[in-house]
């Protein structure tokens, strides 16, 4: 029988990039239409199969506001995976990715990560290209993927990728 892995993943990124929405979509299949800032922390989990392995993925949704930095610091503890997110319609959110990496590095020694670009369905408003996203992911040494939480495109793949990378590191 395959082992069941319990993984702690955190999501970080600028405000309104879709951190809470991606977690809700992944764990419940629903899409949250309204925006609301996460104050403190949110939590969701999903049991899934990754290859032949069973995974209980516990995802911690960290609020992105500046004043929450000290609160966030508590919740990084024990995380094995980090999802860095940005919004393809916002340069600001893309430029903040490196700042988020610096914050995670201050709080975690060893972790696997993925760079996730959201809102690819907003074709007309898109300002960050796939190539630019890939370039930053390469600099960070992590995989890059593009998703649309609204259209439920590639959301599960993003989580499966990070789970696979963490499990592979165990072996």
């Amino acid at each position, binding site marked *: 029988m395959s082992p069941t892995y*319990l993984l*702690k993943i955190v999501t970080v990124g600028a*405000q*309104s990039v879709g951190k809470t929405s991606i977690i809700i979509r992944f*764990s*419940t*299949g629903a899409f949250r*239409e*309204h*925006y*609301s*800032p*996460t*104050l*403190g*922390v*949110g*939590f*969701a*989990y*999903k049991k899934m199969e990754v290859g032949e392995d069973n995974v*209980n993925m*516990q995802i911690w949704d960290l609020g992105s*506001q*500046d*004043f929450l930095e000290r*609160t966030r610091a*508590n*919740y990084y*503890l*024990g995380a094995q995976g980090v999802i860095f997110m940005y919004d393809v319609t916002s340069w600001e959110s893309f430029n903040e990715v490196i700042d988020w990496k610096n914050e995670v590095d201050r709080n975690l020694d060893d972790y696997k990560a993925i760079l996730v670009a959201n809102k690819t*369905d*907003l*074709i*007309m*408003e*898109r300002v960050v290209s796939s190539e630019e996203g890939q370039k930053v992911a390469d600099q960070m040494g992590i995989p890059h993927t593009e998703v649309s939480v609204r259209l439920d495109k590639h959301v599960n793949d993003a989580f499966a990728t990070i789970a696979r990378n963490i499990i592979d590191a165990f072996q």
Partner: protein
Amino acid sequence: MDFTRRCYTLQSHAIQAILITDKGGSPRFYMQLDPKALNMDPVMASSFFAAIDMFSKKVFDESNPVCHVDYGSRLFTLLNGVKTNLIAVSIKSLGKEVIDVLDSLLAEFELDWLEIVDPFEYNFDTSFVDVYLEAFGERVMERLSLRLLSDTWVPYYTIRPDRPIAIQSLLRDYINGSSNVKEIVEVSNLSRREVVLELSKLWAHRVVRFRNMFSFNDFMTTGTQFIRYVQATSDETKDLQTLHPGMEGVIPHLAGLIDGRKTVREILAELGARHDESELLRALDYLMEVGVIQALTPEKRRILLVKEALELALRVAEGTYSLSEATSALQLVLKETKAPEVLSQLQLKGEKWVVDFDFKILEGIETRRLMILYGEWMKILAQFVQILNPTKLELYVKNLTTVFSQRIVKRYSALDLRGFEEFAYWLEILSTPTKPHVGPVHTSHLQIAWSNAMEELAYLLVTRGHIIYRSESITQIQSASGTPLIDLLPEEWVGKDHVDTFERVMYEYSKLGPAAVLTLLILATQRAILLPQEVLI
């Protein structure tokens, strides 16, 4: 493309308006399918969409026949035709069935109607609406009909009563300006569907409009042009004296009450002793029709809620701490705030911070920005409470919960409360002295795919509670309520009675502190769950 004229009508769609433009960016046809939706300027919109169409083809090499532009809660669907483009404005994504109907309407327009308005009569001396194509409008309505025609709306003719109506209608004798849709259905012996179709046809020919398009729970606000109706010498007031004698005397009384934070019901209650209710409603209808007052949109209602919450948080802080402590706490928070739409609405009057509720500041702001501004107000509220002296925080949160339960939770709808639970979680975090739980959360049989609202609430309380209060607290709730919580599925918490068991869990959770009570109040209201009597404030 399907060129056949299907005879069925889509009864349910999300389209608010349809615009057809030529490839050069001139409007050819515009029609509102939602009488409540804000009017779009067809000339300006046509140029905008022509530019977007060109941009998407050149920059993204996007040559799809259908593409979407998302503006927060408004979605624009662009359909490319041979000579023209059709743009549908909607509040959510359109299904394939609706897009097929639009596609065939566009084909029909190009084949049967485009030549009629070609060369197009529009020029800078002629208003676009003057060359409106009624006959094609009727075809649109045959296929799509009016969106959301409420039973309480009252149709009335826009033409003079003595002018004959060129168009035949089954409703001719029933539209009298005072019977609402429900009453017309009753007296006409027509089905609701037939009445909707007839009204849609009359709407397409622009011979009817509607009154009573707001609900009593709508929050009303004025636009910048409203001032003209309270100036005795303005052209608008003079017109009003001719068109609706007497109304010019009612509007000034309404003026002070349409302040962005009172509902229609509250306005009527305030003036009920001095004016007849129907007189007040007629004046509100008129002001809405001329576009100088409006009901707050869902996004603006959420902003109003959080602004009221901040004002209450300030007043409660002045009472629990002191005026100077409350004032300087907000002063400190505002040093870090940048959004001009927020900063300009917080005014220091004397030594007291006052929230300005005038919504004109948000005129013309698109939905995505409104959502960001909601986030800014939430951030200020959260930071303000965080800065207050922690030694009195428990008392403060207790007082705040009492005030919020009366003035926020009871006053606003479940939809308005969306997202506000985050503030209650924040209060729980701030008022819990122990460090949060950061390790794995014991989820066992707890389900995330809920079959009912109670299970969803149980999931939120157990997981969030686990993190904020640590697992020991959840174990205590488990033993005090005699409920296995995470070791059994919520549907198996039957005991003697599922609801009783669940109520015990809620009661035990409320004992964690006043912030936990606020969380319960908000989450339960959002899900229409009745709280046990012991938890209610």
